[in-house]
């Protein structure tokens, strides 16, 4: 089932939740709506589910307009953020609910519920009440309940938001496999980029009720289309520099930037990702050290190591620019960092392998 969102707008009082949003979701896609809270991602999901009506625009299902179809008739599987399990019903009755209200025969209900309990790995727990389940189990009951009505699309609102880290990762992988098995068009909302990138076929980044970027996880990660996406993906070094004559200046260090060939100088934001920086000791030009050859290159910035922080496989080196006005982070594999043996106080040269420059957009607000 493909989904089409065309020019959808929605506001709550004076708050503009969605502004002319259009989106096509091909059949079988697992799509992530990624954005901070208040970006409109949940509202979009609820409009697709029919839980809310758009102020303008329309929703299509396989090219057929379903904007005015009531949520009851949309045959959408919706997994709520806090699961919204029916507290007074057993797990079995929760899953059976959709079939019960459709007056399905009892035998069919029983076999379908058993099948779903097996699918979500909750065999034998049908008699329990939601209160007797762990968070992850409740989440799977909510999923089974949504799947029980054989929905045409599956919508999940922050499906892992309320779970602890370990369960979250497990469920994520499991959901991906489940999606591949069932092959149903699925959309989930998340504010966690890791979740979006790991799980989704496609990622839609939203901000202030608009779509900032849409693409495959790699595309979005490697080529953030807007400063917002860059910021939201986080973990960047941001500098305020200038551009002119096809070059951007970062602390006086010129970097090639052919997108701006004009002579007129303009302020720009320069983004450097910590893992896309090379770092080398200056003065003692470490032979064979990573990036040693680059240390002398024109496009490198002199800096001083302030401290080293090890975060698992990576080591983060915090440096200070020569005039001590800025800090920037460089990430190296811990093994490499150990080999080079940086010490606080070392003089280093930092060279970007990759730079992103954004000219200021008057409408852009972080």
């Amino acid at each position, binding site marked *: 089932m493909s989904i089409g969102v065309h020019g959808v707008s929605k506001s709550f009082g004076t708050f503009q939740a969605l502004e002319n949003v259009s989106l096509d979701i091909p059949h079988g896609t697992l799509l992530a709506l990624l954005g901070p809270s208040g970006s409109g991602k949940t509202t979009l999901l609820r409009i697709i*589910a*029919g*839980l809310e009506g758009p102020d303008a625009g329309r929703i299509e299902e396989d090219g057929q307009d379903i904007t005015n179809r009531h*949520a*009851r*008739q*949309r*045959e*959408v*599987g*919706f997994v*709520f953020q*806090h*699961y*919204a*399990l*029916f*507290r*007074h019903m057993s797990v079995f009755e929760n899953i059976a*609910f*959709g079939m019960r*209200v*459709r007056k399905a025969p009892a035998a069919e209900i029983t076999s379908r519920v058993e099948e779903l309990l097996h699918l979500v*790995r*909750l065999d034998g*727990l049908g008699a329990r009440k*939601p*209160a007797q*389940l*762990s*968070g*992850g*189990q*409740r989440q799977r009951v909510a999923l089974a*309940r*949504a799947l*029980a*009505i054989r929905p045409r699309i599956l919508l999940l609102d922050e499906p892992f938001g*309320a*779970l*602890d880290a*370990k*369960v979250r990762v*497990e*469920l994520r*992988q*499991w959901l991906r496999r489940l999606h591949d098995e069932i092959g149903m068009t699925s959309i989930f909302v998340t504010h966690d980029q890791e979740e979006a990138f790991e799980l989704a076929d496609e990622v839609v980044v939203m901000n202030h009720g608009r779509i900032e970027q849409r693409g495959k996880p790699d595309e979005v990660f490697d080529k953030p289309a807007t400063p917002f996406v860059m910021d939201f993906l986080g973990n960047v070094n941001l500098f305020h520099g200038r551009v002119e004559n096809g070059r951007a200046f970062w602390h006086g260090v010129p970097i090639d930037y052919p997108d701006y060939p004009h002579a007129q100088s303009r302020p720009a934001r320069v983004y450097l990702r910590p893992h896309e920086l090379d770092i080398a000791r200056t003065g003692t030009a470490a032979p064979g050290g990573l990036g040693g050859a680059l240390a002398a290159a024109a496009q490198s910035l002199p800096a001083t190591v302030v401290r080293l922080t090890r975060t698992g496989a990576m080591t983060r080196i915090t440096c200070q620019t020569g005039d001590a006005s800025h800090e920037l982070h460089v990430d190296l594999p811990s093994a490499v960092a150990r080999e080079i043996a940086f010490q606080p106080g070392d003089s280093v040269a930092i060279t970007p392998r990759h730079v992103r420059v954004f000219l200021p957009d008057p409408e852009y607000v972080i």
Partner: protein
Amino acid sequence: MASNSRWKKSLLNFFHLEHYWKHPLFSAVRRTGQRLARGLRQWSHSLSKAATATRLSELLLIAAAVASIGLLIVVPLASVFVAAFANGPRAWWEAIAHDPDTRHAIWLSLTVAPVAVAFNTIFGIAAAWLVARFRFPGRTLLVSLFDVPFSVSPVVAGLALVLIFGRQGLFGPTLATFGAKVIFAWPGLVLATTFVTLPMVVRELIPVMEAIGPEEELAAVSLGANGWQVFWRITLPNIRWALLHGIVLANARAMGEFGAVYVVSGHIAGATDTMPLRVEKLFQEYRTPASMAVASVLAGLALVTLVAKVVIERQLEAESKELEAARASDAGTDPTTGGDLS
């Protein structure tokens, strides 16, 4: 200071207290009390341990609270039963069962209160659903209108009904041509009782429904349930204890309502006297033992209500804790079957 003493004086005047404020016995009691308090204070100061002093003042507070409740509530309640059974259970039973007017009053109360409560239940559910699940212009005004019956004297409410349905009232002549009677009759009693108890169910339901939130109902709709299915299978089970709480309290008030019913009933013995009205009538007829007997039935009912209330509140508390737990600790893992996804 001058204004202070003027206040004191007018207060004393108001309660006709001035003559015993200066009464020798009273002032002796007053002086003894002051001396006792001073002694206690000195004694507690002399105790070196602060904890003992704290404990002492705690004891005094507890004693004061228990004494207030005892004097204001327990003694009167106990005296109903003592007075009702003063002449033995047999006399009590005869006063209740052998007086046809009293029997009729009991019967009338048993038919009026449930109907009024039923009206209130329907209204309460509809109004709470409206207010807790939808946002619309005028909502706040509507909510404040729910409370109006609490700030209108029941007597005034009864009067308003008389002005509408009474013989000289707005609809009185029209009703008379149909031979229908509202005032001095059963429908008037029901209307008056409904008015007085109107806010009770809805006031219980609104906070509970708002705390539960609409998500379960939305989930049911998205699973294909229609309005009735949502109500009977999701909403009603979720609010059942709050609803019962409201019904029990509304019923107690309905059974005991006096002012509004007094005005619209015309208190015709054997026809429009409810139990509380019967209590008053027997009292006016100087048949205090019989009056106490009827009163003891009502007091017994109040005790049953109280027990039911405590039981229901325990359930409500358990449910709200469960709800909170479900919201808060989703992150918890169940060690038995937590990560079995491989």
